[in-house]
């Protein structure tokens, strides 16, 4: 962790802010870990997310939302910056039913960033990474330029939020 006035991009700090917003908040997603080109988010068990009452498992739609969000964080981790983007396509194979009332963890790797598109692959599991509940592959289309932290030394791109500062 950096100094209090450290402006470098930190995926952990960014996602902890997103935990209180929109669909991430509705799903109760929590930051777990990240690396140079991957990210991990957790979705703790919540009765509001049940998709099948008899099986006591969270909805497949909620697991897709978790994987989609984790994929985004993996792309930003690889870029070292936040960049707005939209999901283009997403494929999921469900390998097995999750254990009743289990929390789900998603781990997604961004394995390629091209000019317009980012490619990701990942898994969702309920405790054992060697026995995942789902595999996913997806691509994202960038919808704007990267947004570096204000005053960041390591990213010379202008901050598009401050359009008046652009050359």
């Amino acid at each position, binding site marked *: 962790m950096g100094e209090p006035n450290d402006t470098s991009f930190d995926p952990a700090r960014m996602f902890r802010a997103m935990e209180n917003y929109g669909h991430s*908040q509705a*799903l109760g997603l929590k930051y777990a870990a990240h690396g140079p080109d991957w990210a991990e988010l957790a979705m703790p068990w919540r009765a509001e*997310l049940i998709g099948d*009452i008899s099986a006591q498992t969270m*909805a*497949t*739609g909620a697991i*897709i939302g978790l994987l989609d969000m984790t994929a985004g964080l993996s792309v930003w981790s690889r870029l070292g910056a936040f960049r707005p983007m939209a999901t283009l396509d997403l*494929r999921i194979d*469900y390998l097995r039913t999750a254990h009743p009332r289990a929390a789900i963890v998603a781990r997604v790797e961004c394995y390629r960033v091209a000019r317009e598109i980012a490619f990701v692959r990942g898994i969702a599991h309920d405790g054992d990474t060697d026995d995942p509940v789902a595999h996913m592959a997806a691509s994202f289309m960038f919808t704007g330029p990267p947004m570096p932290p204000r005053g960041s030394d390591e990213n010379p791109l202008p901050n598009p939020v401050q359009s008046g500062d652009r050359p």
Partner: protein
Amino acid sequence: MTDATGAPLPPYARLLGISVEQANDGASPVLRMDFSAALAGRPGNLHGGAIAGLLDMAAHAALTSSLAASNRPGFKQIGITIDYVRTGKQQPTFARGRVTRVGRRVATVIVEAWQEEGGPQMAAARLHMLLTGDED
């Protein structure tokens, strides 16, 4: 709130604000998802995960209603492939599934989502379901 066969929609559907807009006998129901803060993605847009949730629910509703008359109502999801065609706006969204094939073991469902009546497709998905048959 119930689905086309009278079964209650699960808690996740209520969290997303999904209701059955139109349920005709023998046809797949149209599901409606009203916008709320719980569906927000990037500012001004719907989150891709919420769109996926609606597509998923509409596909399940279509297959449930299609299998309702048979003696093998159980199914498990094998996989889903989603295409996001255009950005989702923060307004009501609709989706309807269509069962394209029910085989001995596997059923295929395609599902479409849109935001304006008669308007362009916003997203689409194809799902394969394993029919679990008599043991249910």
